[in-house]
């Protein structure tokens, strides 16, 4: 049987894409999910702070997922759980395996890739010290604690100040553990300011900026962790070491988009995002194969994941229905000064409706500044910002009427200009 759309991954990205494609008129839609239920990472994110943009309400992760599950109910969208996708081919055959049906291959008129991220591990950051038990990624600890009912430790040091680490600092404290320190190698926190306040400051958990873990000791289980200050080259400064007696280290040191399938399918990748290069409608370099959510670039807010994924779902529907417009001039986006990457990486002008939405991250902290979009010497649009931080994804909507003035021979540069006080 041939599906109109197969969605790989049933997290918020996959759910939103399926919903939008259904609303746009596709009927044979299948979601493949390797876990035993839909919802993705949201099932373990029991804290609130989701949905303020999308639903104008503060929801917990499970509640946010629940909203999308309710929207899909009765729509005829099929799901197969416990199903691992092994391969997606450029001609859109999807190979998967599960304990009931064994190995299966399905054909699809369009595919949405929504596999999310996985966490960077101890090996990935070459953390020194003994190979003892008690070192977890923060997200793994979150799943143990919130879903499977295991308390992962009593005296905890957290490395990295990304949102997951901060959320876990509070969560472990509420469950009776003592969080001794949150250690961040950069001079600024990785997570949202609100999480610094409500997860660390509320519980008097010290945050050591420009510090890192230089040693982990323990036979069997973690016993001691050495923390030292680092200089501007992130090299530990001798004489600044302090030792914490603890039994657990949680790592919140970044996420990596999970793109084995994408690469294998032959999609062009962007080394800066770790995800596929995408067009304005979230299509990858392979026609009819779309990608959205954390698998494209790491998001901090699920609301933006949903918005981007609904766009992907609608585009998949247009592709299948043959209503996708003809190619016209193409604009290539370039991350200029102060900008680390942009998503999308390319725009087909004819496909842009009123605005082209562009997501990006800045390379460092900025005070009052302007984000400008430039084609050659010509500045097309400017957006004022009071402050920007690398930990917070930025979004601009560039009006189509301005993009029409761009020179297709030149890259469209997105850059930051600091306001001179």
């Amino acid at each position, binding site marked *: 049987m041939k599906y109109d759309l197969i969605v790989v991954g049933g997290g918020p990205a996959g759910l939103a894409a399926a919903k939008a494609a259904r609303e746009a008129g596709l009927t044979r839609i299948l979601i493949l999910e390797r876990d035993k239920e839909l919802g993705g990472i949201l099932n373990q994110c*029991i804290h609130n702070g989701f949905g303020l943009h999308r639903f104008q309400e503060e929801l*917990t992760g*499970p509640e946010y997922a*629940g909203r999308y599950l309710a929207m899909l109910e009765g729509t005829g969208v099929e799901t197969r759980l416990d199903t691992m996708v092994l391969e997606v081919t450029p001609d859109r055959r999807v190979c998967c395996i599960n304990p009931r049906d064994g190995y299966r291959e399905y054909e699809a008129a369009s595919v949405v890739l929504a596999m999310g991220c996985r966490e960077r591990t101890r090996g990935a950051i070459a953390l020194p010290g003994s190979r003892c038990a008690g070192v977890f990624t923060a997200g793994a600890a979150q799943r143990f604690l919130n*879903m499977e009912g295991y308390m992962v430790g009593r005296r905890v040091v957290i490395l990295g100040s990304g949102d997951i680490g901060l959320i876990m600092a509070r969560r472990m404290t*509420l*469950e009776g553990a003592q969080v001794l320190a949150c250690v961040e190698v950069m001079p600024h926190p990785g997570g949202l300011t609100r999480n610094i*306040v409500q997860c660390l400051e509320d519980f008097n958990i010290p945050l050591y900026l420009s510090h890192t873990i230089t040693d982990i000791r323990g036979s069997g289980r973690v016993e001691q962790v050495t923390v030292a200050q680092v200089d501007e080259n992130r090299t530990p400064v001798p004489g600044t070491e302090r030792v914490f007696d603890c039994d657990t280290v949680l790592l919140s040191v970044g996420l990596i988009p999970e793109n084995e399938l994408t690469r294998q399918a032959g999609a062009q990748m962007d080394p800066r995002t770790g995800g596929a290069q995408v067009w304005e409608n979230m299509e990858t370099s392979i026609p009819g194969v779309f990608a959205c959510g954390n698998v494209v670039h790491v998001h901090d*807010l699920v609301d933006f994941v949903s918005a981007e994924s609904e766009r992907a779902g609608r585009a998949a529907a247009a592709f299948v229905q043959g209503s996708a417009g003809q190619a016209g001039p193409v604009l290539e986006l370039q991350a200029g000064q102060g900008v680390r990457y942009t998503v999308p990486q390319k725009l087909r002008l004819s496909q842009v409706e009123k605005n082209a939405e562009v997501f990006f991250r800045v390379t460092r902290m900025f005070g009052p500044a302007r984000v400008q979009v430039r084609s050659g010497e010509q500045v097309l649009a400017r957006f004022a910002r009071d402050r920007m931080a690398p930990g917070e994804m930025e979004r601009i909507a560039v009006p189509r009427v301005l993009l029409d003035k761009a020179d297709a021979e030149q890259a469209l540069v997105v850059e930051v200009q600091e306001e001179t006080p």
Partner: protein
Amino acid sequence: MRELTCIVCPKGCRLKVDEAHDWAVTGNSCPRGAEYGKAECVAPTRVVTSTVRIEGGTHRRIPVKTSGPIPKKDVFAAMALLDAVCLQAPVEAHVPVVRDILGTGVDFITTRAMKRED
């Protein structure tokens, strides 16, 4: 003048609260910030999220939250109330599992449904 960061939404505005003038708030980008700034100085509150034990469900824990904010000073005492709770699957979303937490009028409610898994 007290300076604090608004935690109501991810924007995280820097607020200044003037204790001498009826906790007048500046630096907020929306009315919710003004409300938060005053409350944080007069009677700080938090929404608490956690989990409780569940038997016979897809997982061993089911997530819960307070149905509204409770006084910040009561957070740990409220958490302790959850230790005694054990639910039996199946359970619907938004059912109370502890009522009237410490006389606040606020309940702990489930934040998802959980099926029975045999």
